């Protein structure tokens, strides 16, 4: 179980006796709550992105959901149902979340650059959303780093999931759009995984506040 540990306050001077803490440590469950909120926001953004893409994407044949098995993060072993998920330890859950988060830093950058020249009518909206996603991802990664520091060394282990798609999504419009859609679908799932893991962690850490879970 997670222990409540107070964050080292930067402003707290070394001699503890004389000085009062200038800042109060944020409890873990509160940190988790904030983290899960941010991951929730990230997933919402990715869902909006896919919907926006589909609204204008000319489906030829019938637009099928791209096979997420080809996602660059599919190598990461994640629970596939609830029983499995509930059996994963908090540290592992945190590690998984952090790994997934870390795996999307580069693809998000590729998406961001590609969105500017995306042959899509809503590319400006898409581009802004992707940038927002990047910001959320960055801040969540920072928060999870702090959290994982409280949870032990296993929580801080991050699996390396490189993105091998390259910076170029394609040459022709169809290829570009297909790749873009594919990446967005992978992002949507992985952001949902992150969000789910963090929310499970939140409920596990809220033993003192069972009303939230």
């Amino acid at each position, binding site marked *: 179980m997670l222990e409540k540990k107070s964050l080292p306050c930067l402003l707290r001077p070394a001699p503890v006796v004389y000085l009062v803490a200038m800042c109060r440590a944020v409890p873990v469950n509160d940190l988790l709550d904030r983290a899960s909120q941010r991951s*929730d926001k990230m*997933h*919402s953004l990715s*869902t909006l992105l896919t919907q926006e893409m589909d609204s204008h994407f000319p489906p030829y044949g*019938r637009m*099928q*959901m791209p*096979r*997420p*098995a080809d996602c660059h993060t599919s190598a990461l072993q*994640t*629970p*596939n*149902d*609830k029983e499995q*998920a*509930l059996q994963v330890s908090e540290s592992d859950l945190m590690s998984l979340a952090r790994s997934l988060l870390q795996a999307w830093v580069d693809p998000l950058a590729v998406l961001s650059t590609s969105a500017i020249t995306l042959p899509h009518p809503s590319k400006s909206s898409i581009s802004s959303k992707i940038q927002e996603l990047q910001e959320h991802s960055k801040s969540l990664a920072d928060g999870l780093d702090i959290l994982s520091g409280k949870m032990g060394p296993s929580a801080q282990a991050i699996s390396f999931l490189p993105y091998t798609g390259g910076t170029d999504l394609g040459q022709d419009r169809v290829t570009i759009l297909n790749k873009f859609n594919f990446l967005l679908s992978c992002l949507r*799932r992985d952001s*949902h*995984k992150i*969000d*789910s893991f963090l*929310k*499970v*962690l*939140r*409920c*596990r850490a809220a033993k003192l506040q*069972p*009303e*939230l*879970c």
Partner: protein
Amino acid sequence: MKKVGEVVLLWLLILFIHNAAGEGYSPPGKPTNISCRSPEKETFTCWWKPGSDGGLPTTYALYYRKEGSQRVFECPDYKTAGKNSCFFSKNVTFVWVNYNITVVATNSRGRAFSDPVDIDVVYIVKPNPPEEVVVNVTEDKDWPFLQVSWKPPKMADTRSGWITLFYEVRLKLENKNKWEVVSAGQRKTLQIYSLRSGGTYEVQVRCKPDHGFWSEWSPSSRVKVPEYFPQERSMWILIVVFAAFILIIFIRMVYMNFHSVKRYLLPPVPGPKIKGIDKQFLKSGKSEDIFSSLVVSDFPPTTSNYEDFLVQYLEVYVPEERELIMNEGKDLQDDSFKTENSTCDNDSGRGSCDSHTLLTDKGGGDKEDGQQSDQEGSQAEADTKSQEEALEEELLACSHENLQSSNVSNEKEKVKSWPSLFSPLPQYSFSPVNRPNPPKTGKQHCLSDSLFTPNSMPSYFTQPGPSTTKGFRSNYWECSFDHKQSHPLHPQSAAHEHLQAQNDLNTAHVDYMGAPLDVHVLNVRPSEYVEVQRVSVEDGVLLHPVSPSQEDSRTLSHQTEDYSRVRVVNNDNGLLLLQRDAIEEEKSMCPYQEDVVSRASITPTLQNSATGINIALPILDEMAASGYIDTAIMFGLPTH
């Protein structure tokens, strides 16, 4: 033969059956609208819409593939979720895995494949409605509120955080149609305030996963709010009673002070002060109509008569000082007279003011001259002034005791003052005067006691012509001439009286001759005598002022010997003047009607004028009718 027939029949039968069997059968239609839902992210169900069955029993089968594998599975459970459904149990449900689902319809004729759909269980979560919705009304009697609590659906595992649910509550009054929706977040309780006293509420709750679909609303929970606001009605009753009480008091105050308030808000507009004048009629602005109403049509003598009348009529001499007064009498305005006569004691009795002034001040002018000139001038229709003057002259002639000097101007002036006597005159009678036939011209006004017979028109004979009598309203004094033109018009006294009477607005009877001036003339200069110089053939009496020999007659004593008395006043229009024995000759007799004349002891000189006498009675009648003059004259005059 039979066999051949049987074979043929058999063939036909087979053929028929074969055909029948082939018609209407077709492969099934394609299943459509595949939708799947997962209530708790652990299981899910898919439903499809079957197409046409092609007339044959059709079976449906659902096949699915999971991502990354080509292995096809068939739906494990077609029953649990009902018809045309497939239920995926926990064993076969995996999250973060794409399912590719296809439904196949099969009948004996063929099969039909539906369009495949891809689903991920985590994206199709639609939980069941919240359960155990409990609504309580708190025990607080003063301000009760609703306490709503519920439980998450059984199958949703929110405890472990696998599913995160957000809740919504809605409520409405039982007989209304509008729901009020309140968001409750992740909490499982809610308080609702501001309830309708005595109302019955329906409460429903639903939930939604963090990334999923809203559940259905839970069944309604009814609750009745107790009556917690009974004071409302009693308070309103109190307010209404209080307001009614205040309103009654206010109304009563206004009612009591209604007149003062009304006077304050709507100050009364001073109206014309002449009796008998129809304000509205005058406002109509048609002078002709006004004049006609005021003046009898035949009152102003015709031109021809008028001239004669004028010629034969009174000459009034007005002393200098009186001229001043008269000069301003150009217009018939009362103002002029008023300014002149400061001794007006009665607002309405302009004539009275003037009369008394006239009586005292005006001496007899040259009747003949003045009158003539005036009369002639007054013949001009528009010459109000002249008419006034003429009228005045006559009036003066009648009323003046001391008609010493008669000059035209004086007469005129006098005449002017006369109109003041006949304050009504300027308004009505003079207006008719403005008409072609100046009424005044023919009039001689003599006041005499006897003239004022009660209930009869004062003996006014003013008008020279019969026609003029009617038009002649104002307070014409009846001139009672004894017989002579030269006689001072005892009517002077009468006139004075009359004037006074007029001043008093019909209040006083002029005491018959001798004391006409008493009433108010006392404060006025002694009236002047007017002598009848001659009597016109037709009906005029020419008067000229005579030196007042009876100035003292202004005393209250009625009978002065100098005055002529009116013996009888005809109801219609006659004034019978009695000749004074003492002043037989001097007495002037106002012309009056023939019948009267015949009876009167009128000097022959006057007899001529008798015909022309238009007794003022009718005029007075009319005048009385018109209101201003002279009730005093009309009714109160004693006969002697």
